[in-house]
C-alpha cells in the first residue's frame, strides 16, 4: 500500500480537529473562563477582600491542614501497599487490590456517612467518644478521615502497575550486593518510582483539597471552623454572594492549573529518563 492510501482525507482530518477543539473549549475552557471572569467581575479589590475575609481565610487554612495530614498518610500507605502488591506473592492479594480501589466506586457521600455511623453521636463509638470528650465528626479528625478515605487509591494505583512492570530484579541485585531491605528501598526502589510517585501525590493532593461530598457529610458546615474551601464556596453561593463564592472557587481553579503545570513539568523534566527505560 502506498503512503497516500494510509493518509486520511483532509476534510475528515479538519472536521475531527475542529470537533475535538470545540469539545475541549466547551467542556473545559468555558467553565474555567467563567469562574475567573465571575470572580473578577467586580475588580481585583473585591476579589482580594473576598479571599482575605476571616471565614474564607479559615477555610483556606483548614483545607491546607487537611491536605497536609491526608496526603503524607496516603503517600506512605500507598507506597507500602504498592510495594507489597507488586513485589511479593501472598494470599489475598487480589482482595487487597480490590479494597484499595473501593473508594473510587463508592459515592463520596457514602464515604462520609460511614464515618458518621462510626463516630457520630448515634454511631458505634459515639457514646464512648462523648464520654472521653473526643470530637471526630464535625471537627478536624472527621474531615481528615473522610479525605484520607476518598483519596486513598491515588498513590497506590499509580504505583502498582509501575512497580509490577519493573519486576524484582533490581531489588534482588541490591540484596545480593549486600544491601539491607531498608537500603534497597531508599537507594533502588524509591528512585525507580519517583516520577510515578510524584505524579500520584500531585493527583492525591488535588483531590484532597477539592473533595466536597464526603467532607460535606462530616463537616457540620460551621463557618470559620469546619468549612473547607469547597464547602465555603457552596455556603457563599447559597447566600447569593456570587462574587465571593467565585473568588474562593477561583483559588481552587488555580490549584488545578498549578497541578496541571507541575504535572507537565514533571513529564518534561523526566522525559529523557522515561524514554531511556522503554
Amino acid at each position, binding site marked *: 500500500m502506498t503512503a497516500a492510501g494510509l493518509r486520511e482525507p483532509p476534510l475528515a482530518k479538519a472536521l475531527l480537529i475542529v470537533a475535538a477543539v470545540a469539545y475541549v473549549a466547551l467542556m473545559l475552557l468555558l467553565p474555567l473562563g467563567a469562574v475567573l471572569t465571575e470572580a473578577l467581575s467586580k475588580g481585583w479589590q473585591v476579589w482580594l477582600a473576598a479571599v482575605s475575609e476571616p471565614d474564607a481565610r479559615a477555610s483556606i487554612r483548614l483545607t491546607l491542614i487537611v491536605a497536609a495530614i491526608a496526603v503524607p498518610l496516603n503517600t506512605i500507605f500507598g507506597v507500602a501497599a504498592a510495594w507489597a502488591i507488586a513485589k511479593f506473592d501472598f494470599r489475598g492479594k487480589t482482595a487487597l487490590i480490590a479494597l484499595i480501589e473501593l473508594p473510587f466506586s463508592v459515592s463520596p457521600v457514602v464515604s462520609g456517612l460511614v464515618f458518621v455511623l462510626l463516630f457520630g453521636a448515634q454511631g458505634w463509638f459515639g457514646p464512648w467518644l462523648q464520654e472521653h470528650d473526643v470530637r471526630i465528626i464535625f471537627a478536624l479528625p472527621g474531615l481528615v478521615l473522610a479525605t484520607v478515605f476518598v483519596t486513598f487509591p491515588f498513590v497506590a494505583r499509580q504505583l502498582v502497575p509501575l512497580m509490577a512492570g519493573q519486576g524484582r530484579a533490581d531489588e*534482588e*541485585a541490591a*540484596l*545480593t*550486593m*549486600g544491601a539491607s531491605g531498608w*537500603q534497597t528501598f531508599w537507594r*533502588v526502589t524509591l528512585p525507580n518510582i519517583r516520577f510515578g510517585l510524584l505524579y500520584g501525590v500531585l493527583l492525591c493532593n488535588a483531590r484532597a483539597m477539592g473533595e466536597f461530598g464526603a467532607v460535606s457529610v462530616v463537616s457540620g458546615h460551621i463557618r470559620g471552623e469546619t468549612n473547607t474551601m469547597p464547602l465555603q464556596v457552596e455556603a457563599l453561593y447559597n447566600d447569593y454572594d456570587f462574587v465571593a463564592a467565585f473568588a474562593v472557587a477561583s483559588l481552587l481553579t488555580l490549584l488545578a492549573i498549578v497541578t496541571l503545570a507541575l504535572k507537565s513539568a514533571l513529564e518534561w523534566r523526566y522525559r529523557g*529518563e522515561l524514554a531511556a527505560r522503554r
Partner: protein
Amino acid sequence: MSIRVEHVSKSFSAYPALGDVSLTVDNGEFVALLGPSGSGKTTLLRILAGLEVPETGKIWFGERDVTADKPASRGIGFVFQHYALFGHMTVAANIAFGLKVMKRSARPTRDAIGTRVDELLDLVQLPGLGPRYPSQLSGGQRQRVALARALARNPRILLLDEPFGALDAKVRRELREALRKIHDELGLTSIFVTHDHEEAFTLADRVALLNQGRIEQFAPPVEILDNPASEFVTAFLA
C-alpha cells in the same frame, strides 16, 4: 570456595521445581547448569544465591552451612540475565553500590572505592566509562558492568543466570572469553545457567544437565558427549 548441595527440594504451588538434588562443586571450578526451560536450573541457582529458600536440604559453602543465610551475607556475586543495572545511577555508582552499602566500620574510604571502581572497569575492559549511564551502553557493555558490579565485594563465588541470553552471537563469544579469563585470574568458583549446550560445553569444566527438577548427568563435557547417562541427555544434545 567449594559448594555442596545436599538433597535440596523446592516446589512452586503445585509442580515440583527441584526434587532431591545433590551436587558438589570443587573450589575453582567453572560449572554450567544446563537444561530446557522449566528444568529447575534457575531455581537451583537462585537457591544458591539465597533468593529462594529450599523446602528441604542444605547448602554448604566450604565448611559453612549457608542454608538459612540471607543473600547479603553469603559472599556471592550474582549476574542477572537482563543485567538489572540501576538506571538512575552512573556506571561507577552501580559498581560502587555493594561497597557503599557496607556498614560504616567496614566501608572503604571514598578514594578507595573510586580506585576499586577503576580497577574493576579495567578488569571488564571498559576503562573510562564510569560517568556514563546504563542506558548509554550496548547490551554487551551493560553485562560487563553487571559483572564488574557483582565482583566489587570480592566474592569467592560467582553465580550467573543466563548471562549471555540477551546478546548477539559475536558479543556472546567475546564476553564468554572475558568471563572465563576473569574466573581463572581471580580464582573464583563460578556457576552459570544456560539452555545452550554449545555454550555450556565450550565454557564449563563440568556440566550439570537438569531435567524436570533432577540432575540427569554431572560430568565434564567430553564424558557427557562420549557417554550420555540417559536417553534424555542423548535427545537434548541432538
